[in-house]
């Protein structure tokens, strides 16, 4: 597809279980972001991948959260031992730098999100 896709669109899990959320960015986009949006709230930055650089994990709320990006494309966000406060919509976005020399930046394209409900 042409846009960012995420799967599953909805996930209901029991407290204590692990979940994996998947993001397929737009082909060729070098940057990939994960955000969390709780009901009625803004976007909370979680993690950012840019090319082959080490990811910026500064937004991950606890060590139960991890993410990887394989082959510079697909990314998986894993939440271990889920808690009820993890319930939220998890959004993925990708972007592509406009130029390789000087720092130049393009907008992010967002996926539809995965709605996670932890019972």
């Amino acid at each position, binding site marked *: 597809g042409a846009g960012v896709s995420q799967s599953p669109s909805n996930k209901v899990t029991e407290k204590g279980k692990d979940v994996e959320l998947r993001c397929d960015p737009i082909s060729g986009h070098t*940057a990939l*972001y994960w*955000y969390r949006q709780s009901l009625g*709230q*803004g*976007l909370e*930055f979680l993690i*950012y991948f*840019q090319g082959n650089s080490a990811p*910026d994990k*500064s937004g991950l709320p606890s060590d139960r959260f991890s993410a990887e990006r394989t082959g510079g494309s697909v990314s998986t966000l894993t939440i271990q031992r889920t808690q009820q406060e993890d319930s939220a*919509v998890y*959004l993925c*976005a990708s972007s592509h730098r406009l130029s390789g020399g000087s*720092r130049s*930046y*393009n*907008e*992010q*394209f*967002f*996926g*539809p*999100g995965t709605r996670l409900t932890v019972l």
Partner: protein
Amino acid sequence: AQKVTQAQTEISVVEKEDVTLDCVYETRDTTYYLFWYKQPPSGELVFLIRRNSFDEQNEISGRYSWNFQKSTSSFNFTITASQVVDSAVYFCALSEWSDKVIFGPGTSLSVIP
């Protein structure tokens, strides 16, 4: 540290009124980027505009206009002659040298017919 403030949590206007959404940012960088995104009730975020810190020209796109003022660290967004379809949550965002994009808390706009 970078920070984005959108002081207006919720705004309601009557259709055809003009409305301005405020955005104030904090950064130590001299090079940065500012963005506005729209999140309609369907949930998917839509990019509206990008502005770099060296370009202080205001921009107009149809009924939308943006006022960037470095002196006050503000990047305000005005919708002229609002329409019901403008009802959404609007997010202002900031990207510094690290490319990490930080979003403001959002302003929920309701346009009443």
